[in-house]
């Protein structure tokens, strides 16, 4: 399942996948796979993404 919350948060910050990837220290493909729901990141990477996008873990990764 796609992580639309993460895509929206990234677009709100006007960041490309490559820029977000650089900010959190992973490859662009990894960000793409997380957004498409094809890769489960570790908690460490989730936190780094949250910090880079200014969101909380609940806001980005919690599914209701």
């Amino acid at each position, binding site marked *: 399942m796609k992580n639309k919350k993460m895509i929206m948060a990234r677009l709100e910050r006007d960041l490309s996948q490559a820029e977000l990837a650089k900010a959190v220290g992973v*490859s662009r*493909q990894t960000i793409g796979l997380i957004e498409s729901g094809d890769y489960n990141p570790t908690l460490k990477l989730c936190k780094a993404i949250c910090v880079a996008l200014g969101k909380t873990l609940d806001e980005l990764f919690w599914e209701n």
Partner: protein
Amino acid sequence: MDERQKSAVSAAMAKVLVILYIGVVIVGVMKFVTNFRIVDCLWEMATAVAVPLLVLLFTHRRKRTVFPMSLAGLAISPDRTKEAKRGRVKAYLLDSLQFSLTMTAIQVVWAAWQALRANGMRLSVWSDVLRAIPQWLGDCGVCFIVFLALDTVLYEWKSRRYCRENQEYLI
């Protein structure tokens, strides 16, 4: 290399290791069956023993709390409840049954192979094999009991350690 790439490489390397390990074991068995000399397959035997030990050592050094798994690869609930304990006992029984049946099968195949090799495919050899069945069943029973005892002691200790470590992480 990021975490996803590391994970993909680790998974691929684990598969390669398993294939190589099976290859080494097959080569070792072939060498032994051909010449019946242990000296010829010492390297293969050493590798077959060293690889699981090294994997254990390196995974242990990661110091991660690993959920206890049975020999069959099933997760064993480490909870202290009666239901969890019943599940654990069932897993120990299954483990012991699998192990003792496998060991007995190896013993039977080995004994049959030895007898046939020595005497040829004669009927008297088959009657010897049939006569040996009670002995094999006895061995299987002893193997089952010994393995059950060892499995129970080891996995009960593992599940207690898991609970203890989890308590430490809760603080």
